[in-house]
């Protein structure tokens, strides 16, 4: 019994002084790392590791470097490693959560920036649309003004042409009138050489001597009469709007009735000739006046010669022939 007690003391002393196995040392070191890394993020796992290490230490205290000690140290080390892995897992999760939060914040900022940009683009588009509409209005107004200007220009050109035509026409008419007046003047001057021309209230009266026009008692025109009447016709045609009346007169020789017939025939002869020479038929009339309205005394030869006459009365304008 005494010997057994001595042996037990010796074994105990040996254990107390035995160096811990490598596995236990390694477990302690790993646990120390875990205590630093996992205290906050994996306390439960760290607690398991601590209990396992306590078991290993207790076994070592009991048994020294037995296989059980190594097994329990092994278990303690694994549990410490589990605590460290769990801590890394938690840290990774926290890091991911932080990243996700930052991503959400950045996304929100980006979304706000995008919204602001789109709003600005929309406003720009609207402003651009307003500008385009304004430009379209201005272009439309410009086109309208241009059209009005073109119309005005064309109208001015037409008016200018019309004015030019009118002026030309007026000039032509004035020239024609001057020519007519000149011809009339020339003719009248020629006529005045053969007969008298007088302005009277009833109109312009051209008096042709009966001796020049007809043989005694006849109403056929003499050749000399034709020349004189050609000049008269030319003058009358120059102003075709005026009405003309050919009046035949005789002296008092013979009966008044025969004188009236003779004067009518002579007036008609002159009328027909003038029509042949171009005087408008509807503008010229003829009538016999007989021995009425003598211009001289029928008592003398000279007076009767003057009474035998034909008067061509050119009426003022707008008076129909009698």
């Amino acid at each position, binding site marked *: 019994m005494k010997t057994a007690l001595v042996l037990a003391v010796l074994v105990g002393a040996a254990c107390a002084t035995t160096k811990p196995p490598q596995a236990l040392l390694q477990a302690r070191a790993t646990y120390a790392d875990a205590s630093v890394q996992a205290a906050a993020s994996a306390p439960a796992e760290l607690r398991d590791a601590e209990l396992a290490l306590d078991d290993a230490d207790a076994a070592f205290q009991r048994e020294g470097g037995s296989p059980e000690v190594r*097994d329990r140290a092994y278990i303690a080390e694994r549990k410490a490693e589990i605590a460290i892995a769990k801590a890394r897992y938690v840290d990774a999760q926290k890091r991911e959560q932080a990243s996700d939060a930052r991503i959400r914040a*950045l996304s929100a900022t980006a979304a706000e920036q995008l919204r602001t940009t789109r709003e600005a683009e929309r406003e720009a588009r609207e402003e651009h649309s307003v500008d385009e509409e304004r430009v379209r209005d201005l272009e439309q107004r410009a086109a309208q003004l241009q059209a009005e200007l073109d119309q005005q220009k064309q109208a001015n050109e037409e008016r200018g042409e019309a004015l030019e035509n009118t002026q030309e026409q007026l000039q032509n008419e004035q020239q024609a009138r001057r020519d007519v007046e000149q011809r009339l003047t020339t003719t009248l001057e020629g006529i005045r050489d053969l007969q008298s021309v007088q302005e009277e209230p009833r109109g312009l009266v051209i008096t042709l001597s009966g001796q020049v026009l007809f043989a005694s008692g006849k109403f056929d025109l003499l050749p000399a009469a034709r020349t004189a009447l050609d000049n008269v016709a030319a003058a009358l045609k120059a102003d075709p709007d005026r009405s003309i009346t050919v009046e035949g007169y005789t002296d008092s020789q013979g009966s008044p009735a025969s004188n009236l017939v003779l004067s009518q025939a002579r007036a008609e002869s002159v009328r027909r000739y003038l029509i042949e020479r171009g005087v408008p038929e509807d503008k010229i009339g003829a009538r016999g006046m007989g021995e009425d309205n003598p211009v001289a005394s029928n008592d003398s030869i000279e007076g009767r010669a003057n009474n035998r006459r034909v008067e061509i009365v050119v009426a003022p304008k707008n008076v129909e022939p009698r």
Partner: protein
Amino acid sequence: VEAEMKLLLATFLVAGALACATAETLPPDRLASSEGAIRAADELGAQSVPAAALHLRLAEDELSAAKAFADKGDLSRAELALVKSTADADLAVALVRADAARASADKSAAEMENLERSTR
């Protein structure tokens, strides 16, 4: 000789009976815990994480050792081997999860950096 043969046969029979008896004495809860942890590590993809794959292999070896110890009748070592197997399998699971979390965190960090660059 016949007596010796009978003695030898009896010895084998006793030894076999003893072996069967110790194999059946492995604690079912610890055995189930070890096997469950190994299955979990495998299903989580421990084979794709080198450190986790190592501890998964160790867990499987410890499970086999536990059965061997039990077969030898060393229940104490067998139980410790089961605890070691479970610890290795749990460590494999923890390493897989930590690795997945790290990868996910790295991905988020990369996305964050890209977004920061794009929003500057």
